[in-house]
């Protein structure tokens, strides 16, 4: 009986706490959410941590190890390891990122971007996202046996997904992440299963500090004079061009390589790839598939094959694909930026 009374008391307290948290003006909520995200960023940059997490997509779960630490001269060391199946590691030492994958020889890239399951923007300047997303601090819950603060990164329009982050109150680190549609449908989740923060560099990272990474690939700088035949006429607000090039798209090394014109766009959180090439077929109905939050879209209209890939809803992919037009000769691909602003709705 006593227990029941206590429970009731707790419940009422909880309710009053959440309502009082929801009552103040939304601006303060946003501000506190931003503070949380900034704290996440500094924690990800400065703490020595050893974590494990599981990426849960439609019907599969993939476990990873993630280690991070500061080595000599405050050089950042980071290891992502996929634990199931063939080995896939991402190693980072300062600004050299190495990818070790079963299909090809290990290679390094000079970049401050680790393309792992966790978006790198969380380590960087979160205010880049303010254009396209709202930050909302929601409430507290218990994740991984810790007190967690739920922060929602909500898309301002219907053309992208929302991200929910559960952050550790003690360390500010990520405990759980979910990608949801606007309707609240869960697409992908990352659940941490273990977190350890230490003052010392962990043994694995100390060892990694001594190993040498493969030589960095020299990326050929795209000549600006190169002519691009196609341009994207519509993109959701906030996306800008990251790069564009011509390369061969090899379909599983079957020899039927085809040259494509490639464009990469990003809004800071999400990358969208657009592929355009001429096809012998005149028409092919839209085909698409999704892998967790990643949408792959492809169609042929009037002899032009367009592919769109990224963590975006189908509507967005379709709309982008339909907006492909022959480039106006003078502007080249810079016209993309100009056309971006027209898509500001909701």
């Amino acid at each position: 009986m006593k227990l029941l009374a206590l429970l009731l008391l707790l419940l009422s307290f909880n309710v009053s706490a959440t309502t009082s948290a929801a009552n103040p003006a939304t601006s303060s909520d946003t501000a506190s959410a931003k503070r949380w995200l900034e704290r996440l960023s500094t924690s990800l940059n400065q703490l020595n941590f050893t974590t494990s997490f599981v990426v849960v997509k439609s019907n599969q779960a993939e476990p990873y190890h993630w280690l991070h630490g500061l080595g000599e001269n405050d050089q950042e060391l980071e290891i992502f390891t996929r634990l199931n199946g063939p080995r896939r590691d991402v190693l980072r030492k300062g600004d050299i990122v190495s990818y070790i994958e079963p299909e090809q020889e290990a290679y390094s890239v000079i970049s401050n971007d680790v393309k792992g399951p966790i978006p790198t923007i969380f380590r960087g300047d979160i205010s880049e996202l303010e254009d396209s997303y709202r930050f909302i601090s929601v409430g507290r819950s218990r994740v991984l046996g810790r007190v967690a603060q739920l922060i929602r990164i909500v898309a301002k329009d219907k053309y992208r997904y929302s991200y929910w982050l559960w952050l550790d109150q003690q360390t500010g680190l990520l405990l759980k992440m979910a990608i949801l549609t606007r309707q609240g449908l869960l697409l992908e989740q990352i659940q941490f299963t273990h977190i350890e923060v230490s003052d010392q560099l962990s043994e694995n990272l100390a060892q990694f500090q001594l190993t040498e990474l493969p030589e960095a690939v020299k990326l050929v700088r795209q000549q600006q004079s190169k002519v691009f035949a196609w341009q994207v006429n519509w993109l959701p607000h906030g996306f800008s061009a990251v790069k564009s090039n011509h390369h061969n798209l090899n379909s599983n090394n079957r020899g039927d390589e085809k040259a494509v014109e490639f464009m990469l766009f990003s809004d800071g959180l999400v990358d969208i790839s657009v592929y355009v090439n001429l096809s012998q077929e005149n028409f092919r109905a839209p085909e698409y598939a999704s892998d967790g939050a990643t949408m792959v879209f492809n169609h042929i209209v009037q002899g032009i094959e367009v592919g769109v890939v990224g963590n975006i809803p189908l509507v967005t992919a379709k709309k982008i694909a339909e907006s492909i037009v022959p480039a106006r000769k003078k502007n080249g691909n810079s016209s993309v930026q100009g056309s971006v602003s027209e898509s500001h709705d909701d």
Partner: protein
Amino acid sequence: MSEIKSESISSLVDNYSPSTDTSVNTHLVDNMLKDEHLSSTWQNYHLIGDVLRDEVPQSLQLDLSKTISAAIAQEATILSPNSSTQSSSNSFAPLTNDAVVQTSESVKSTSRVIDATNRFKAKISALVKPMGQVAIAASAAALMIVGVQNNISDNSSITPSQVVQTVPLTGYANPVSFSVQSTKFQKNQQGKLQAQQVMNEQLAAERVAQQRRLQALLKDHTQQVKLGSNIK
């Protein structure tokens, strides 16, 4: 007199001790058992109470006691397992001797036995309950395992797309998984007309080609994303 009696019966029905008149009080129950009129009053009061409390069963069996006593009277000597112990204790009296006594006694003893078994059951169930819950949890786990195994076997039965599925991808993204539907479709159609089969093969080939196209895109996307930007 009868008015006082019925009044006291009424209060007895309502769980109050009847009037202070102890002479009525003490003999009330005995009188009631003897007097058919009083017992029917007792019965009626209960029925009224039931109706008022809305506790009347859907099919109202007005005289349960009569049917029960009739059933007991009709019941012959029971040769139940415990009647053997009964007969051994009553070995002086022949079995056919006094049916009424015999049955009443056997009823008593069975009721005792039932009582004991009930108590025993209660104890057991109290003991077993947590175990049962564990068992339920365990069976749920077993179900899950079965389910998972089912899934696995399902996956392995995807023959046409297996080739595609085993081709590893470059990035973290996993093989595009829409193939299940197509294979189901294919399975259902198998064993039908050959023309249809040919069509299916074409369809499957088309699906494989489609999947290959989409996977090539996905693969290249993850690769390109890793290579970083060249505009800055």
